[in-house]
């Protein structure tokens, strides 16, 4: 059987879920080979995503019915431009961070547990982005949440364990709320398929309740202010590769579901005030996250609070997308934020991890002159910082530009003011670190060499966030496949 026969277009989504899952299972059964299964996955999965992307780019979106059962009886997997783009950014970040994790954990006892959990997390994300069934989404959410929690706890320090516990409790509560919403939707409509739910008639009170429950659960999981309290400790205390994917992808996964539900099911039946409310919470998140990042004493905590702020930007998409004529621009902006933040934030976390690896701590005030020791990592930090601030030429800038356009053309200029203000605040917290890193210091204590692999992987991701700023046309074209908005 040739490769072409095995990788038929219709089987690509299934492979994307099965392959990491198989790798995860194998790495449990054969712990000695776990690194190699992970590497195998890190090479093949991006390849599969590229195949899928090519396929849908030329032939449009793909829907497959698992088990051959049509909806509503069976579960369907759906790959349009949006989900493929999400899969792509997942493959990119995971693929690169895997090669960072290898030196990071090398010789470490926990590596044995890290790899299976890592692969489970990856398969959960892939399954989540492909799923077109609200109950199946619940299962993927749980797979995602549990593996993320276990990865946070991996370093076994008191802080990490407490953070993991908090995260677990929030995550489980969120899942329960979501499941209750699923129950209501199923009771009201008799189907779990997203597509079929999208075409059922006018909203009843139970559907509104279902949405409220699901949205509440997903918002808890995406750490929107004021449900963000669990995120900074969890992301700051996890091992660096874990923090990277947590900030880059895991919080975005629940946001992705929310976007899907919003667009497909709820937009017509939701009063505009809800969107405004989400936007206001996003605004609060931007301000609060930035202020906390300015006050943070540890580098990773700073980065984690920056994630809180950036999640706020994501939620601005809801009020902006309701504005007349610029809805599409707003969605593009929001998703562009998501992609560029994924690349940039993972790069920043990896660089911060390298700092800790090299100096044994990440207390910002004691990190003078580290740019001489870790030039590549700091360059990566800087490039990614450019994207986080939203300066050109970077993915973050494109996102900001699209948002600004939407808000100014749509007549709600105050969001634009907020976006610019947020950019200034992120400049402040990023340069707060940089002004230490660049300063001259004769002696830098407690150092050990940073593996080159760790430095260059961070750099590659940062470069990706920059490249995103140069190719927005094709990314946006990709997003429009299957017309998700």
């Amino acid at each position, binding site marked *: 059987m040739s490769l072409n026969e095995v990788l038929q277009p219709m089987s690509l989504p299934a492979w994307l879920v099965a392959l990491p899952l198989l790798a995860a299972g194998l790495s449990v059964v054969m712990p000695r080979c776990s690194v190699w299964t992970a590497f195998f996955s890190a090479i093949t999965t991006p390849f599969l995503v590229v195949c899928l992307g090519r396929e849908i780019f030329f032939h449009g979106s793909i829907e497959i019915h698992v088990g051959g059962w049509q909806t509503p009886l069976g579960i369907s997997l759906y790959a349009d431009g949006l989900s493929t783009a999400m899969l792509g950014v997942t493959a990119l970040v995971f693929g690169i961070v895997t090669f960072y994790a290898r030196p990071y954990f090398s010789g470490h006892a926990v590596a044995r547990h890290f790899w299976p959990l890592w692969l489970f997390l990856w398969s959960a994300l892939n399954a989540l982005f492909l799923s077109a069934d609200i109950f199946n989404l619940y299962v993927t959410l749980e797979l995602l949440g549990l593996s993320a929690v276990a990865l946070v706890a991996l370093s076994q320090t008191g802080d990490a364990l407490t953070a993991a516990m908090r995260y677990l409790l929030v995550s489980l509560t969120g899942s329960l709320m979501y499941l209750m919403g699923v129950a209501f939707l199923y009771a009201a409509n008799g189907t779990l398929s997203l597509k079929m739910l999208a075409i059922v008639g006018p909203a009843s009170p139970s559907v509104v309740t279902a949405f409220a429950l699901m949205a509440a659960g997903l918002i808890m999981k995406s750490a929107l202010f004021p449900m963000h309290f669990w995120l900074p400790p969890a992301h700051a205390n996890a091992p660096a590769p874990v923090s990277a994917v947590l900030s880059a992808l895991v919080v975005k996964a629940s946001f992705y579901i929310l976007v899907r539900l919003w667009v497909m099911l709820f937009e017509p039946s939701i009063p505009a005030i809800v969107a405004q409310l989400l936007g206001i919470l996003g605004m609060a998140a931007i301000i609060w996250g930035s202020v906390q990042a300015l006050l943070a004493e540890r580098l990773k905590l700073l980065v984690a609070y920056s994630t809180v702020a950036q999640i706020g930007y994501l939620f601005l998409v809801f009020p902006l997308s309701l504005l007349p004529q610029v809805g599409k621009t707003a969605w593009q902006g929001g998703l562009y934020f998501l992609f560029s933040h994924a690349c940039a934030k993972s790069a920043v976390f990896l660089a911060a991890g390298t700092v800790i690896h090299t100096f044994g701590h990440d207390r910002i005030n004691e990190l003078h002159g580290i740019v001489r020791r870790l030039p590549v990592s700091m360059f990566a930090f*800087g490039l990614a910082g450019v994207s986080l601030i939203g*300066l050109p*030429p970077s993915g973050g800038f494109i996102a900001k*530009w699209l948002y600004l356009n939407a808000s100014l053309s749509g007549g709600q200029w105050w969001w634009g003011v907020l976006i610019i203000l947020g950019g*200034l605040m992120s400049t402040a917290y990023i340069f707060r670190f940089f*002004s230490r890193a660049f300063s001259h210091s004769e002696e830098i204590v407690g150092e050990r060499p940073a593996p080159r692999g760790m430095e260059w992987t961070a750099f590659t991701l940062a470069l990706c966030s920059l490249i995103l700023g140069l190719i927005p046309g094709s990314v946006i074209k990709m997003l429009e496949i299957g017309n998700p908005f």
Partner: protein
Amino acid sequence: MTFDNWLPLLILLTSLLPGIVIFVLPEERIGWRTGLNMGGATLKLMLIGILIWGVRHEHSYETRIPILPNIELVLNADAMSVMMTALSSVLWFLTTLYAIAYLETSPQSRSRFFGFFSLCVSSTIGLALAGNLLTFLMFYEMLTLSTYPLVVFRGTPESMRAGRTYIAYTIGGGAAFLAGVAWLKALVGSVAFTEGGMLAPYVGVYATQLRFIFLLMIAGLGVKAALVPLHGWLPKAMVAPAPVSALLHAVAVVKAGAFGIVRVVYDVYGIELSGELGLLQPLAIVAAFTIVYGSVRALFQDELKKRLAYSTVSQVSYIALGASVIGPVATIGGIVHLVHQGLMKITLFFCAGNFAETTGVHHIREMNGIGRRMPWTMVAFTMASLGMIGVPPLAGFISKWYLATGALAANKPWVIAILVASSLLNAAYFLPIIYRGWFREPAESVSTESHAGLLETHWMLLIPPLITALLALLAGVLADAPFSPLEWARLIAEREYRP
């Protein structure tokens, strides 16, 4: 895509690519680094030669890269951008030469320095070639980011403070500029630079909004152009190494701001429309105030580089002043000053760097008799200072003359008063230096011994200021010759005022 489509991009890449390669070069690869730098710079100069020839013959060179569905990255060579590009490339070439010698003994990473240096120049070239506001904005922000590491290059607490101030001002300005650009885009849908302006059809409907947008954009650009009260970062940024100061003041940052103001006034709003909206009078007043204020502050500085910095604050506003007076003659004066000020100011900074590097002199009070110790440097310094004051036949005189006659033509005699006052002040703060340098007896403490060898200092430190001083002289003497800055400025003005 033909060569004509590629040329602007190629010119950009001749500094961008070497810059990127230099980052990854190991520290000790000096030969490679120098080769890359100088090779890139030479290639760039050659390409620009082609560009100058073509643009003069109304040939159009344009690179268009679509980035978003309704907006493109445009690199476009018109007369104005060619002038700025040529200026920055020539000066980049010389500054690189200078910096190689200057940093020979620096403890900090030179790969980092030259990498960011190249990025900095690439950004300047990019914004010079930008064909619309978005492209301009992109390179404008890139410039901010690539200069920060240069400003804080020494890593001392003082330079870190300067870096913080610099970032606070420029990022703030960038945000204001971004807001203006985005607003304009939302309002009229186009942000392209068009000779003679492109907003005339909208003025009836959106007059108020357009005024606010102008304010935002000028505020954003004014930060880099160091318009009072947005000039605070510039004197502090003096802590940077001399080649960086030279670049900051003569080519890159300050010029980017001034160039942006010229672009916005002429190619976005159009000079007539700006006048109609009543935007030019306030700009002229701010510029005039900056000119006087900068000169007065310069008068009281004892540190040489600080005095030069305040002098920059003052001199750059001539450009803004030229842009805010309606009429082709004033336009010529403002635009030609872009080049003239660059040549003269970079000479001054090279010389200041030489003094500091060779004899350790940082303050004016220590400069007694330095002309005997370093005659060549002092000759260059004297020529540039006289040019700044506006002594004929040096370059500075040409700019001031055109500004003055332009102001008369536009019926704004008060501008002449400003120019005279400024020239007097210039003389007041430059002449004492020259006098000390040539005619005062050197103090005992300063050694009069010559630098080892034939020359007073390293030849790579000496050649660049002499060349730039010579260029400043030639720009004045041969002002009427073809391809002189003045002649080119006339070309620009002619095209701007073309009906």
